[in-house]
C-alpha cells in the first residue's frame, strides 16, 4: 500500500507537484497520466526518494519512507524506466543479479530466480548470456521488468516503461505485464502518457495537470463521475468503448438453454465487449449470438447489456 499525504515539490520557485494526496491499495495497479511536464516523473521519483519531497508525507506499507535509509528503501522497490537502463557492460544474467547481490542473496538463489524471471517475461534461458546490445527494444524492456521483479519487491514504480518501442511490441509488453501482474499482485504505480495504455493496464487511473492531482479513480468512475470537465476532455470520447474491452463476453452474456431464435451475427465466448460492440455496429444489429469453442450457439448478448455494463460498473466503482 502506498499513501501520499499533501505531497509537494518545489524547484527553486517552480511548483512541480502541488499538494497531492492519494492512496494505492496493496495489489492495485494505478496508472498515472497527464500532459507532459505535469509532474508525473517527479511524483514517482519522490516515492523511492530519488527526489526529496518539499512538503508532505509518503508511506509505503504504513512505513514513512523518510524513516528508512534511502539506499535500503530503493533495494526493496522495483524501478523500471523508459530507457531501461540495463548496464551495457553486464550480461542479462549479471543485470538480473544486481539487486539480489546488493541484498546479499546467495548465488544459487540468484541463479534459480533468474531462470524463473526469464520464464515469467517469456525470454529463452539462453538470453541470460547475452549483452544488452544484442537485444531488441522489447526484449531489453522485458529484462528491465525482470530485473525489477527478481527480488520480489512489494512495490513497483514504472516510468513510461513501454513508450520507446513500436506499437505492436508495446501491446505485447502490456499483455505480458498484465499477465504477470495478475499472478504476482504487486502494488504498482505506472506512469504513461497514453490514455489507452492507462486504461488497458490500470485498476485505477490518476490524472494530473500542472502539478495537481485532478482525480484518482477507477476508469468507470472517471467516465461517469468526472470531478472536472478536464477529466472528460482528457479521457476522450472513445474511453467508454475502450473500457468495454476490459470485460469479457463470457461474464456478461445470457446463456440460453432453449433458443427461441438465434441471430445470424455471432461472437465467440472468449471475445471482449468492445469486440461485441464492433460486431453490432458493423452488421447493424443489437443482438449477437454467442458461440462456444466448438462454434455452437450457447447464448446471446444485446446492445442494452453493453450499455448496462458501463452504467452498472460506474456505481460500484
Amino acid at each position, binding site marked *: 500500500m502506498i499513501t501520499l499525504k499533501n505531497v509537494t515539490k518545489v524547484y527553486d520557485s517552480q511548483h512541480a507537484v502541488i499538494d497531492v494526496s492519494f492512496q494505492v491499495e496493496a495489489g492495485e495497479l494505478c496508472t498515472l497520466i497527464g500532459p507532459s511536464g505535469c509532474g508525473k516523473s517527479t511524483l514517482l521519483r519522490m516515492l*523511492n526518494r*530519488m527526489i526529496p519531497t518539499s512538503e508532505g508525507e509518503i508511506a509505503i506499507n504504513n512505513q514513512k519512507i523518510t524513516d528508512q535509509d534511502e*539506499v*535500503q*528503501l*530503493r*533495494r*526493496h522497490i522495483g*524501478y523500471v*524506466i*523508459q*530507457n*531501461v*537502463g*540495463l*548496464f*551495457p*557492460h553486464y550480461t542479462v544474467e549479471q543485470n538480473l543479479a*544486481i*539487486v539480489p547481490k*546488493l541484498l546479499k542473496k546467495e548465488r544459487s538463489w540468484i541463479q534459480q530466480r533468474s531462470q524463473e524471471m526469464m520464464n515469467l517475461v517469456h525470454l529463452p534461458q539462453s538470453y541470460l548470456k547475452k*549483452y544488452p546490445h544484442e537485444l531488441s527494444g522489447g526484449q531489453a524492456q522485458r529484462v528491465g521488468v525482470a*530485473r525489477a521483479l527478481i527480488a520480489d519487491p512489494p512495490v513497483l514504480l514504472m516510468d513510461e516503461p513501454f513508450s520507446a518501442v513500436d506499437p505492436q511490441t508495446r501491446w505485447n509488453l502490456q499483455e505480458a505485464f498484465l499477465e504477470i501482474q495478475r499472478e504476482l499482485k504487486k502494488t504498482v504505480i505506472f506512469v504513461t502518457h497514453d490514455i489507452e495504455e492507462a486504461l488497458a493496464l490500470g485498476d485505477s487511473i490518476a490524472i494530473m495537470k500542472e502539478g495537481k492531482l485532478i482525480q484518482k479513480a477507477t476508469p468507470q468512475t472517471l467516465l461517469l463521475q468526472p470531478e472536472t470537465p478536464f477529466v472528460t476532455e482528457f479521457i476522450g470520447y472513445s474511453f467508454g468503448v475502450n473500457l468495454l474491452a476490459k470485460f469479457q463476453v463470457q461474464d456478461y452474456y445470457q446463456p440460453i438453454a432453449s433458443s427461441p431464435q438465434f441471430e445470424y451475427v455471432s461472437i465467440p465466448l472468449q471475445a471482449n465487449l468492445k469486440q461485441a460492440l464492433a460486431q453490432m455496429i458493423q452488421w447493424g444489429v443489437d443482438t449477437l449470438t454467442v458461440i462456444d469453442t466448438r462454434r455452437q450457439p450457447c447464448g446471446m448478448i444485446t446492445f442494452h447489456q453493453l450499455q448496462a455494463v458501463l452504467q452498472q460498473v460506474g456505481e460500484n466503482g
Partner: protein
Amino acid sequence: MRKKIIGLATLISLLVIFLWNYQGIEQVLQAWLPTGSSIFVQRTELWTLFREHVQLVSITVGIALSVGIAIAISEEFDSTRQVRPLLQQLGTIFQSFPTVAIIALIVPLLGYGNRAVIIGVAIYGILPVMQNTLTGFEQVDPAVIDAAKGMGMNRWQQIWSVKFPLALPIILAGLRTAVIISISAVTIGAAAGSGGLGLPIILGLRSQNLVLILQGTIPIALMALIADQAFRLWEWRLHQR
C-alpha cells in the same frame, strides 16, 4: 588485430636490439657521424639510463593516475557541480604551459634532482587523466546511472560498478597521453638533474656529438611509439566487448 600486435612486437624488438647491442651500433654510427669534440664522455651504461627513465616514467604516471582519478572521483561527491567547469578550465590552461616552464618553476622550490622532476612531470600528467576521467564519467548514459541509483546502489557502488568500467576506454586514452607526455618530459628533466635517457642528449647537444644524441633519442622515440601502440591495442580490445 594481428597487424597491430605484429607492429607492437616489432617496435619492442627494435628497442631490445638497440639496448643490448649498443656497443656495436655505436661503433657503426661513430664511423659515419660527427662525434664533435669529445670532451664530455657518457660514462653511464645505456641500459642503466633506460632503467632510470622507465622508473621515472612509472613513478610520475603512477602519481598522475592516482591523483587524476582521485580528483575526478571526489568531484562526483560535489553536489554543487561548480568545481567541474573550474577543473576543466584549469586543465586547458595548464596544458598550454610548456613542460620546461613547469620544471623551471619547480627547481628553484625543490632544488635540482629527481624530486623536482618527478613532481613537475606528475603535475603535467595529472591533467589528461583527470580530464578524461571526468569526460568519461559524464558520457555514461544517464539512464544507466538513474537505474543504478534507483536499484539501491550507493555512491561508491555507482562509481566502481558502473561509471568506472564504462568510462575505462576514455580514461585509458588519458593515461596514454600521460605516459607519452611523461616519456618526453622526463627527457627534459635530465637538464634539471634527474637521470634517464635525456642525459646523453644534453651532453650530445653541448658537445655537438650526434652519436650521443641518437643514443638518447632513438630509445625514447621507440618507447613513446611502443606505449602509444600498446595503449591503443588495449583501448581497441575494450571497444570490442
